[in-house]
Every structure is written in C-alpha cells, then in structure tokens.
C-alpha cells in the first residue's frame, strides 16, 4: 500500500514509466528470475502541503487461475479524506531481465473505479505467458483521482518469481 498526498493548487504532472532499452550493441538480455530483495523504483513525493490523503494498493503479480496461463496483477485505491468519488487506476506489469533491468510488458490495465477495491472496483494488468519458465515480475500501479490534482508517484509491488515468461 502506498500513502499519497494531493498537492494543493498544482497542475497534474504525469509521466509514463517507459521501457528501459539496452544499447544496440549490448549483449541481448533475456527474461530471468529476479533477486527476491530487488526493490521497486518508487518515486519520492515532493510538493506543497497536503490537502487530502488516499492510498494506492495492489496485490502481488501471480499466475492467473483462469486460463490461458497469464501473469496477472490487480490495483485499486482507498480514499482517506479526498473529495473524489472516482479514480483512474492503471496497472502496468513489468518483467525482469538478465541485464538487471525491468521492462514493461503488455498494455497497462486501466479502469475508472470507486474507492475500496470491491466488486468491479479494481484494475487488472494481464499478460499471457509464452512459456512457464520461472521469471521475475512486478507491477507498477498509478492512481489518478478524477477531478483532483494528485502527485505522480506510483506503487511498485514486491518482486515475485512465478512460472510464467513472456
């Protein structure tokens, strides 16, 4: 769970977490199991005094129990005291590579949902496995409140090595 603050009177400054590309002449990196202690690249919260509070939440990336075999992760938000009913929740799955880098895999799952993560109020990122080799995965979850400016920091879930490779 990540605790975030709404920045008062600040325009939304969003950025995309793009794929990290290796130089063209480098050894080709391949998907690989990740060190369990690998930390997520959580960005710092910087800005003026908070106006309201909400939480970003998500589960560990896992092999989906519904076929086809896929890496899957959910994201949702929990309102503290913000004057917002809906938020756009985005879940981007990332796969670990042998060069030590994380890369975005597949399109981000995106949904406009209510607080709490209940029925119909979660976003899902999902990538079909190409094979069942043990590979490191994580998800990066972003929450953008509808109608309020909020900071651009995101939740990076803990690394999980699962039997799925793309």
């Amino acid at each position: 769970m990540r605790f975030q603050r709404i920045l008062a009177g600040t325009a939304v400054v969003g950025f995309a977490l793009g794929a990290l590309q290796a130089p063209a002449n480098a050894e080709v990196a391949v998907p690989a199991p990740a060190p369990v202690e690998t930390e997520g690249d959580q960005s710092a919260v910087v800005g003026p005094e908070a106006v309201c509070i909400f939480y970003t939440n998500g589960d560990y990336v896992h092999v989906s129990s519904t076929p086809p075999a896929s890496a899957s992760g959910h994201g949702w938000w929990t309102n503290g005291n913000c004057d917002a009913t809906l938020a756009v929740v985005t879940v981007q799955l990332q796969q670990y590579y042998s060069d030590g880098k994380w890369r975005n895999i597949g399109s981000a799952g995106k949904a406009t949902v209510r607080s709490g993560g209940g029925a119909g109020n979660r976003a899902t990122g999902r990538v079909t496995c190409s094979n069942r080799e043990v590979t490191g995965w994580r998800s990066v979850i972003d929450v953008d409140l509808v109608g309020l400016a909020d900071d651009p920091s995101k939740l990076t879930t803990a690394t999980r090595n699962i039997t799925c490779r793309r």
Partner: protein
Amino acid sequence: MVAALRGSLERHPRAASADAFSLFVSRSSAMGWLSSHGPGGCWGMNDAGSDSTGAWFQVSLTGESVPVQAFLACAGDVVARLGRFRLDSVELTVPMPGADSMMGLLQDAGWFADRDPRLVAGVRVAVDPFVPGIVGWMREFRQDVASFSSLDEVVLAEWSPAALGWLAAFLAEASARHGVTTPLTITASRA
C-alpha cells in the same frame, strides 16, 4: 495456495459493493495474515471469486510456513460475510511445509479441545500424491481434531473451514515427512 469452498451460496441482498476478493484482503489484513509490501504477514493476495456454488481463493505464500488453517478460516469468514453458505466440500492445493510444523499443529489443535460432540462429522478425504504410510504416521499423534480409520473414514471434530484447514495442514506435514515435495491436492467432503 488455492482453496475452493463448494456447496451452496445464497448472497445477502445487501452484499453489493464488496466481493470475495475485497473481503478476503480486508479480513486477512485485519488478522495480520496479509503481506502488504512490507514486513509481516503470511501471504500476498492473488485472486478470489464466488458464485452460487461457493467461493475460491488464491494467495502466494511469503514465508516458510504454510498457514492452511488460517487460510481456510479466513475463507470461511468471507463466505459467511457474503451470504448464507452450506459447505459440501473443500478442494485445496497446498505447498509442502518448508520446516517441521508438528509442534505448531499440535498447539493449534487446542482450539478444538472440549469440542461439542454434536458437531462431530464423518469426512472422506482424497490426497494426491498419496503415500500409503501417512495414515499410520498420523494415527501416532494424540490430538482432538481428527481420527483416522482410513482417508475414506475420517472423524473430524467439526465440519468447519478451520477444522478442515487443520486437517489439510496435518496431511501436508505427513506427506512431507514421507518424501512428497510437490504441492498436494486435497479434497474433503462430508461422508
């Protein structure tokens, strides 16, 4: 670790905003079982769902222990919260425990001491992979939760997710002691 509680589930008319997933997250968080991107907890949430025949739950373990009893107790709390549920059977996929868990199991069995004899239930159990020696090994231990003639004739202290969870953990421990290293599939139904 995966569990499916099968039977008949009649949703409460008021049950609309929460579902099996969100209730399981909330309940396991409240009980200290949920690992939420920090230290502590036993499992990370993966997925859950329900329909008129019951509910299913999937978690990924974050430690060496295999807390099957807690897992099923949490699942039982969730289905009770969702609606009126009649439990007919449980299907579980359980990883092998990474360390000797008998002391914990025997301690956990104390929950069923002084059990109400009216709640005792006959249970049929199937285990895959099955090692024939596990039944005789389990019979050696004195506990109040389950007695075994064979896996087709188990007498359980009560027909409840908590008791079934304890039984599954005992079966996993017995299987591990007899060389099983792959996840165990356990099915239990009322006899």
